[in-house]
Structures are given as structure tokens and as C-alpha cells.
């Protein structure tokens, strides 16, 4: 994981995070700061150019209450259609797989089957139900994901999962496309007298005017 992080940080630095002021404290960790989460990011050969990490996985040790917000663009990518369907039928999820390179949008039935194949393989490797694996994709529109490269890399990705800050940072780099910086943040605060943590990662630089629901 450490060597992966060195590799990842060679590609892009971390973004400055503009947290609003409030009764919370910024802490290291991103998506792995909260109890029960692991993450990984590796180079899987999915990108068209370069060797920046391009495949990320976030795993929860238990069934997690799951919520999603998705583009309201009528031309929605296959992973968007898939995730909406899964969250309509299940209130929980265990994992999120994210690839950078191809958006898998406007790819028709074949693109949707690619998403199903990816979710099934991740579920098999993690020994969870397929419905509990969610998928996000980003990259060039109109291109299907490089599925063979992606599927072949999944065992390494699963073996790289870590609850460390490094795992979160590698994942945050692996989901970037034209981003100049990776985006990752976590906070700790009290809810009803108990310390809780909230963390996250994001990507985005262009084609940005979200209208999610």
C-alpha cells in the first residue's frame, strides 16, 4: 500500500480542502476514516494513456445503510442505471467499485452487461451478494470499459484493500481523470455525545454542472 501511495502521489497532489467552520475536527483518512471501511486504488490498465491508478474499491465490513444521488441526465450511463436499480431493491450495500478511463455511457445493452459482470466478479471475490456491489465510472463518453483488464486486476485490487489513510488516498487518486488534484477529506465530531466520523472522496474537473436526485 505504501509503495502504491508513493506511486499515486507521483501523479497528482492532494487538493486543498475548504471545510466550512463548525464543531468538527478535520482528521486524516478520507473514506477509510470511519470505522468499518477499507479502500484501495491501483493501476489496472483501464486508462487510454499513462499509468496513473485507474481502479478503486471501497468496502464496508458490514451491511451499510446505503444512499445514492444520481445524474438526472436522461442519457444516463450504464453504472448509473445499475446503481439506481440496486438501491431501489436494497437498503444496504457493501462495496463500491470505480473505474476511470471510460464512462460506459451511451454504450447500450452491452455496456450494461459489462457493469453486471464487474459487480458479479467483485461480489464473488469479496464473498458478498452482487446486489450489494455498486459501480461508478468516469472517463470518455461512448466507450465501453476495458473489461478484461479490469476483471483481471480485481484480485490485486481486493488484496490491496486497507483501512489506512494510504488506502483512501490511493483510491482518491485512482478515480481522477483530468483532475489536477485528488479530493479526499474526513471529519470527526460528536453526535449525541458519541464521537462519529464522516469521510469522503470525490473527483471532477470538467463537464461539471451536477443536478442529481
Amino acid at each position: 500500500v505504501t509503495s502504491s501511495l508513493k506511486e499515486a502521489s507521483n501523479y497528482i497532489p492532494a487538493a486543498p480542502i475548504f471545510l466550512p467552520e463548525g464543531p468538527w475536527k478535520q482528521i486524516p483518512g478520507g473514506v477509510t476514516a470511519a470505522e468499518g471501511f477499507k479502500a484501495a486504488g491501483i493501476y489496472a490498465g483501464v486508462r487510454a494513456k499513462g499509468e496513473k491508478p485507474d481502479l478503486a474499491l471501497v468496502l464496508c465490513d458490514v451491511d451499510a445503510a446505503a444512499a445514492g444521488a444520481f445524474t438526472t441526465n436522461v442519457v444516463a450511463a450504464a453504472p448509473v442505471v445499475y446503481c439506481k436499480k440496486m438501491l431501489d431493491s436494497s437498503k444496504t450495500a457493501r462495496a463500491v467499485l470505480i473505474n476511470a478511463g471510460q464512462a460506459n455511457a451511451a454504450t447500450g445493452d452491452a455496456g450494461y452487461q459489462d457493469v453486471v459482470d464487474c459487480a458479479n466478479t467483485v461480489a464473488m471475490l469479496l464473498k458478498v451478494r452482487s446486489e450489494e456491489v455498486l459501480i461508478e465510472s468516469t472517463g470518455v463518453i461512448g466507450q465501453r470499459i476495458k473489461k478484461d483488464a479490469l476483471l483481471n486486476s480485481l484480485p490485486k485490487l481486493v488484496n490491496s484493500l486497507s483501512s489506512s489513510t494510504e488506502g483512501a488516498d490511493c483510491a482518491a487518486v485512482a478515480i481522477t481523470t483530468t483532475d489536477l488534484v485528488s479530493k479526499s477529506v474526513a471529519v470527526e465530531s460528536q453526535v449525541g455525545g458519541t464521537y462519529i466520523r464522516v469521510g469522503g472522496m470525490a473527483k471532477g474537473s470538467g463537464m461539471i454542472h451536477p443536478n442529481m436526485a
Partner: protein
Amino acid sequence: TMLGVVTTDASVDSDVWRKMVKVAVNRSFNQITVDGDTSTNDTVIALASGLSRSSRLSSVDCNEAKQLQACLDAVMQGLAKSIAWDGEGATCLIEVRVTGANSEAEAAKIARSVASSSLVKAAVYGRDPNWGRIAAAAGYAGVSFYQNKLRILLGDSLLMDGGQPLPFDRAVAGNYLRKAGETRGTVIIDISVGDGPGSGQAWGCDLSYDYVKINAEYTT
């Protein structure tokens, strides 16, 4: 495209969590803009493990839920602002704050209208304190307000009050924009549209020549 994954160890019912995530997304990711193009892939997935041993939240109205909502808002806003800051070709982040609207939704709509205006974004890149473009973008947001209550501040420079343009030090206001651009800093535009309780924010970035260059070369 913007993607996000948010995690927490707070213990919360699924239905409550979904309502909280919707509110936080509307206050953060849905309030950013770089180029006005809505992606086919925009997605935020939020997972709550419940492993913190906090008491389980089963209502959005209790104090504990409000505390968690505030944390969720903060994390998503932090990430959303980083996306706007990293907008293709951008030299600075633009933060638009609107107060005095009739509701949070109306204020947010005005803020996003200003943040997404190509003319406002180009003026910021040109280091031009162009209050007219800001006023116009607020005016076409689709929210009714009295023009004679419009007030516009650019950083510390008051450019318009009571709907009237004011004399201001153009060099000071221009330098404010220039410094933000040179340091990858933040330009703050404060707008008041009346006496209502609604306030909201939106975030964008300036529009540079590089935006066209990047997207002329990134093929579909």
C-alpha cells in the same frame, strides 16, 4: 463528470440516511458548476456502517440527526468546493453567497445562476469587477425579487446597494480578483436580494482560454 463516495460510522436508519444525503447533496455537489454541462455519470454513493456505537437515528428532526447532517454537509461541501477549485483551466474558486431570499431553495438558485454565468466567469478571469454581469445573472435566475433591494459585494468592495451602482475603487476590486487568480485563491461574491430568511451558496471557477484548449483536445 463528478463522482463521490461518502462514508460514516454513525448509526442511522436507511430511510433517514437517504433523506440526509439528499439534503447534503443539494447543499453541496448540486451547487457547483464549472462549465454548465451535466454529465451522464454524476453519482454520489453514501454508506453508513453504524459501527461507532452512537445511538441509532430514526428521525431527521432530532438534535442528533441535525448534528450528523451538519457533518455530512461539511464533508460534501469541502469536496464540492475542491471540484470547483480544480475546474478545467481555472485560476481561482468563485464562491457566491446569497441572502435575503424567501427560501433556501430560491437563494441557492440565484447563487448558482451567478456562479454558472459565462460572462461572470470570464470577467473574473479578466480581473474585471463587473457588477452588471453579476446583477444580470441574479436577475435571470428565475426567482422574483425587488431590483431596488439588490446589494452586491465583491470581496470587501461594495459595488451596488439598494439597486444602485456605487462609486468604488476599481483598482482595489481589480487587485482582489488578480490576487485570487495568482494564488489559486477564492473570489467571494456576496449578494443580498431582500429581507427574507433564505440563504444559499454556490461555487464555480473562472473561465480561461485553457478550458477551450483542454476540451478541444479531449475527444468523445
